[in-house]
């Protein structure tokens, strides 16, 4: 048994960490994440050169990584550096492209020349692909889309969108050019930095990716990998929050002594540290079980999301509370980590959603065993 990431992954982590500390320190990030589209295409390109995008994909489809633990390393550093950009969307879109054998499109994503975002959620889907209503209609050998997607990552600044829509045959995936006719994008910033957009399609031309009606299992697996990514990002954010809070408890003095000497705060810190270790175990489990049966993979992914949802809101709320007034300020990095952590809870399904899903998958498991 071995819980180390291994030398190669550690090297990747170290190089990403140095790069982000140098190029996007918090002093830059605290404004850049809330200006324009809230991310830097230039940084994206440089990170692509460092191999950060390629690490998310298998060699068989043109990447140079693709293990869930490679994904874990990249998203861990994204979390530590509070990096904005369409990372999660690229991960999911790229998985779909890879599964469909579209290696040219994937190559452009990996080398940073094309930013491809991922559009699945709709106003009423609430993380359930079965509720997707965006229509895909075949017109001869061409396809058009009609419908609307919401909170699509960096919709306004991506080059292309990987869209999940419903064809007669069932759920299918499509590529749509950013300047395609009949498409509107309404862009907005996000609470934790970066941006997203609402997208509408009206007879918008689209290119089919994969076979019509066969997208269900593909997008489910892509989402599971996205959950692995978010779990590792969240754990890195929690580690940062813990360390920042500990520093504060050691230096801030009230009643003549460092506030970390007060037992009321000590025990809360101990509980927070314990919850973070449990969350780390959940993230490890989710990555480990990704290469398992579907139910194993999905259950571990949902368990991890439920765990980081619970531990994440605890860590964020406790970190703010223990910092007191200063924890309420924009100037402090901690408050931005706290916002990121709570907002991760709203990506790809929240704690309650995944707890319910974990229960449902448990019933499936029992039926399969019976």
């Amino acid at each position, binding site marked *: 048994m071995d819980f180390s990431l291994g030398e190669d992954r550690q090297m990747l982590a170290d190089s990403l960490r140095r790069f982000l500390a140098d190029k996007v320190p918090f002093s830059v990030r605290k404004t850049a994440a809330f200006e324009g589209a809230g991310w830097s295409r230039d940084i994206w390109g440089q990170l692509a050169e460092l191999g950060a995008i390629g690490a998310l994909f298998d060699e068989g489809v043109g990447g140079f990584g693709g293990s869930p633990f490679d994904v874990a390393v990249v998203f861990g550093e994204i979390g530590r550096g509070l990096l904005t950009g369409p990372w999660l969307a690229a991960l999911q879109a790229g998985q779909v492209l890879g599964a469909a054998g579209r290696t040219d499109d994937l190559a452009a994503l990996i080398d940073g020349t094309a930013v491809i975002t991922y559009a699945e959620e709709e106003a009423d889907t609430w993380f359930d692909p079965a509720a997707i209503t965006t229509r895909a209609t075949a017109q001869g050998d061409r396809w058009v889309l009609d419908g609307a997607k919401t909170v699509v990552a960096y919709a306004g600044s991506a080059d292309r969108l990987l869209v999940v829509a419903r064809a007669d045959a069932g759920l299918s995936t499509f590529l749509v050019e950013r300047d395609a006719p009949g498409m509107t994008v309404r862009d907005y910033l996000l609470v934790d930095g970066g941006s997203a957009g609402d997208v509408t399609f009206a007879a918008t031309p689209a290119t089919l990716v994969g076979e019509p009606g066969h997208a269900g299992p593909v997008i489910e697996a892509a989402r599971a990998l996205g959950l692995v990514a978010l779990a590792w990002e969240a754990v890195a954010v929690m580690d940062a929050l813990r360390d920042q809070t*500990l520093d504060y408890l050691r230096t801030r003095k009230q009643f003549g002594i460092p506030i970390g000497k007060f037992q009321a705060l000590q025990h809360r810190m101990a509980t927070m540290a314990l919850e973070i270790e449990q969350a780390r175990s959940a993230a*490890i489990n989710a990555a480990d079980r990704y290469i398992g049966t579907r139910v194993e993979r999905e259950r571990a992914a949902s368990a991890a999301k439920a765990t980081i949802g619970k531990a994440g809101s605890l860590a964020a709320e406790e970190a703010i509370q223990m910092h007191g007034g200063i924890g309420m300020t924009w100037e402090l990095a901690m408050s931005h980590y706290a916002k990121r952590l709570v907002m991760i809870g709203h990506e790809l399904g929240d704690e309650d959603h995944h707890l319910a899903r974990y229960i449902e998958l448990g019933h499936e498991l029992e039926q399969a065993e019976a």
Partner: protein
Amino acid sequence: MDLTFTPEEEAFRDEVRTFLSQKLPARLSDKIRKSQHLTKAEMEEWHAILNARGWLANHWPVEWGGTGWSVMQRFIFETETALVHAPRVLPFGVSMIGPVLLKYGSEAQKRRWLPRILDGSDWWCQGYSEPGAGSDLASLKTSAVRDGDHYVVNGQKTWTTLAQYANMMFCLVRTSTEGKRQEGISFLLIDMATPGIEVRPIKLLSGDHEVNEVFFTDVRVPVENLVGEENKGWTYAKYLLTYERTNIAGVGASMAAFGELKDIARTQRRNGRPLSEDPQFAARLARLEIELENMKTTNLRVLVAAGAVAAPTAESSMLKIRGTEIRQTIDDLMRRAAGTHARPWIPESFEGGWNGEPVGPEWAGPVSTHYFNDRKLSIFGGSNEVQREIITKAILEL
């Protein structure tokens, strides 16, 4: 990253399973499964079975009858035995006084006492807590005054687990009231048959008799029963508390109990459907299962990080806190699953050979008793608040 056991560890696990299937008497595992009390003879019987295989004091050095197992092997053994409802190995001899003697005892003490732990000649109990010294153990007052070749012991110990069966006690006594409190404590081995010792039972809220008060009135203990040096006992006492904590989270036992809870949730019906499909209960069950799955990995991470040595103190504290919370939650859900049938109390049913008619499903009989008895888990072995103090100082460095 590799979360799998090595082929050698797999083979070891198979060896343990084979041993358990051949040597664990169903008579004993049935009682454990039904939460019935084991007799003294039954507890000794299981020790003897393990000792015959050389696995009783598996973490001792080989030259003293141990096995040389890795921490992972020990974890596998502890998990596998718990999963089949084997009796637990009593810690007092094998895991408490044994390791202290191995590290701090004289050659003569090791030769005298260690073999007797293995062959069951001695049943040890732990004389630590006193009425005024619980979490604040260093405030203990039971005194030992040197008189020629003896110490004369006066005072009182409490919460002494299974002292009613013990013929020996390892005991913390005060030999000096000068300087720091911790520097006046000595570690004595006391024969329970010595005149002046009285053991009185304490009845627990669950009705169980597990713990006792032990009174000492002019009890004469030969000086050769002093372990290590006089006034250095605190060091030995702390060593004992940090040693052999691979199983402190009780993951195996919780896995076994959770398996039963799941079976119950599938069969027990509420509002016309299985409890496992009741939204509130299913959510409680799912949260618990996720926490347990996370705990398993946390436990393995701590073991791997600890390598060949015992798990470091502070991480053990995390395992102790969350491990006991998980076990208490399992008990809590068992009680909730029983509904109205959690209420009847039939003490005879906790003894072997009871053939009476249960009220409600058979499994419901002991759930409330178990629930109340296991409140002790977050209190003993260093309360969970004391564990948070250890985390605060050793991990968080506050």
